[in-house]
């Protein structure tokens, strides 16, 4: 076990996989100087500029060339810098990477990882703050992950790199500096297996990415009040661990799903719809979604904060549901 940051864990996972498999390479703008969040720092020294490759400001080419490079037998790790910029390469991701294997009848696979730093990062405003994970869950062919801890970033990124199909990999910008224990010898973490962050009996809270930490704060507050909340970190959204969530809500009878992205059309709707259907008649309260209002993200902190779901609000909601 070593203590490292979320950013370092990602770097370590990438370095391990690059040592293990010479066909793995990373490409994106400014990688040679360590990447904009330092998450590639030092890698070019070990692996050289061909495998830690700079790129022109050409998101469509970064994504599209990686599709071709994957078809031709390499395993590109694509850095999009901000999830928002990946919107410059959606044809390449959705019409090409995600569909090629199927559309070509299994003649090829497209092993690539698309790293998309996501989420609000103080005053980054509307074009540098988005969380669009639900979009990609809707696209057949794509796997979607969103780790919340250094250990998960380590284990999930390894799985993403070893996967033979495209994985959209969301790292949260507010988590880069988060420290945690990482077992460097651990096996990669499989997709579709949630982590029960805290066991509890009264209510289930499902979250992913940075929201797990807000939810944990809420769970701590609730615990002091004698409310026992179970916190589930989904870790991957596609596939998502339906079994774990249904088992938990089957036990607690109550569910809050909380995410940073917009509530309308967010992945919380999928979870709420699934659980409401599967546990019909067995719920003690309606499933509640806590997520962002349908507004773009502002620059000014008080306005930006309107978009955030706070630990206090999660606790308050849980309290009300449990006393219902």
């Amino acid at each position, binding site marked *: 076990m070593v203590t490292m940051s979320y950013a370092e864990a990602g770097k370590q996972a990438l370095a391990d996989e690059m040592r293990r498999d010479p066909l793995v390479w990373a490409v994106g703008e400014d990688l040679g100087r360590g990447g904009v969040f330092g998450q590639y720092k030092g890698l070019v020294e070990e692996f050289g500029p061909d495998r830690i490759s700079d790129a*022109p400001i050409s998101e469509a080419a970064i994504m599209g*060339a990686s599709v071709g490079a994957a078809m031709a037998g390499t395993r590109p790790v694509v850095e999009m810098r901000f999830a928002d910029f990946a919107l410059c390469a959606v044809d390449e991701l959705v019409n090409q990477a995600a569909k090629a294997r199927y559309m*070509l*009848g299994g*003649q090829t696979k497209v092993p690539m990882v698309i790293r998309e730093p996501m989420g609000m990062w103080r005053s980054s405003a509307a074009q540098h703050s988005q969380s669009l994970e639900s979009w990609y869950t809707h696209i057949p062919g794509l796997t979607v992950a969103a780790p919340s801890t250094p250990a998960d970033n380590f284990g999930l990124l390894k799985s993403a790199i070893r996967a033979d199909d*495209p994985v959209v990999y969301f790292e949260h910008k507010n988590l880069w500096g988060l420290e945690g224990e990482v077992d460097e010898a651990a096996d990669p973490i499989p997709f579709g297996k949630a982590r029960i962050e805290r066991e509890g009996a009264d209510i289930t809270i499902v979250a992913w990415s940075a929201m797990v930490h807000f939810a944990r704060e809420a769970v701590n507050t609730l615990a002091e009040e004698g409310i026992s909340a179970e916190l589930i970190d989904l870790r991957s959204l596609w596939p998502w661990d339906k079994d774990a969530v249904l088992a938990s809500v089957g036990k607690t009878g109550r569910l809050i799903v909380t995410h940073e992205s917009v509530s309308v059309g967010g992945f919380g709707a999928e979870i709420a719809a699934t659980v409401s259907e599967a546990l019909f008649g067995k719920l003690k309260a309606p499933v509640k979604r806590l997520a962002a209002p349908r507004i773009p993200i502002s620059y000014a902190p008080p306005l930006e904060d309107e978009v955030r779901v706070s630990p206090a609000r999660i606790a308050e909601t849980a309290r009300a549901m449990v006393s219902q």
Partner: protein
Amino acid sequence: MNSPNTSAPARNVDVARHTDHHKLMHRIRAFETAALKANEEKLVLGAIHPSIGQEAIAAGVCANLRRDDYLLSTHRGHGHTLAKGANANQMMRELLGREGGNSQGKGGSMHIADFSVGMLGANGVVGANINIAAGAAHAIKLKGEDKVSLSIFGDGAINRGPFLEGLNWAKVFELPAVFVCEDNGFASTTRTDAMTAGPGPAARAESLGIPAVTVDGNDVVAVDEAARELVEAARSGGGPRFLVCKTYRLTGHTAADAAPYRPSAEVDEAWKNDPIARCAALLLGAGVSQDELSAHATDATAEMEAVYEDAKAAAWPAIDLAYADVQDIGDPREEANRW
């Protein structure tokens, strides 16, 4: 648009090589003729984009590719795919959506591909193949192979962003990539020059530091010779190359398009410049008999009629294939969310 000159200048004719071209062009023409018939008989199910009149490009370019080189094509990709060596039976089955198609009937004409001969796919999105081809070239370089990656696209594609991004990419990384623009004067129903600023594809490539050559795309010899040099340069580490082939689309944009937006006199005139006829004239001049040339045509027709019959007789793909090859992770069946 295209040179109306049908008599080739006197030159040293490589009879064997051009005989192969002639046969191949007839095979492409016959394949598409059969496909058009299949379309009329409502057995082709989606849109098909015939390349009739443009066969010299497929033949001339692909003659210079090895089986393990990569080829990326467009919506108008039957000719390129056949020229790269794909099996016509599998292709026709794919067009008819049948079992045994290259892609098991899941892709159809616009996504025709045959990885066994290095053909990594036509594409339904104009210009999308350019970046993919640059990426395949990138993999070649990373792996230290001596292959090339070649993409073919239309004159309409040069107005899409990926054209700039992919060419810049290939040059920045000095990749073994060859870009071939089939300049047939049209993008669907629109004359391309009306929507294209500046001198055109070659100038754009050159502004990105990529040497470009323009040839008469209806002259298979010219295409072949130019492609040979460019492919060789790219293969031997010279970085990317660009080829513009001037041609004319003799049919409508799709099989369903009667092309009323252009005068029939223009089309009639263009037929006089049919690349197959030009190649035949050349071979005739070099001593090949008319009988032999005619045999190429009848053989090709017979082959492709049989190909069509075979495809017609083939079964639909098994329903289970609908759920196959989505991705390794997760079970799409489980997510069907049906009653």
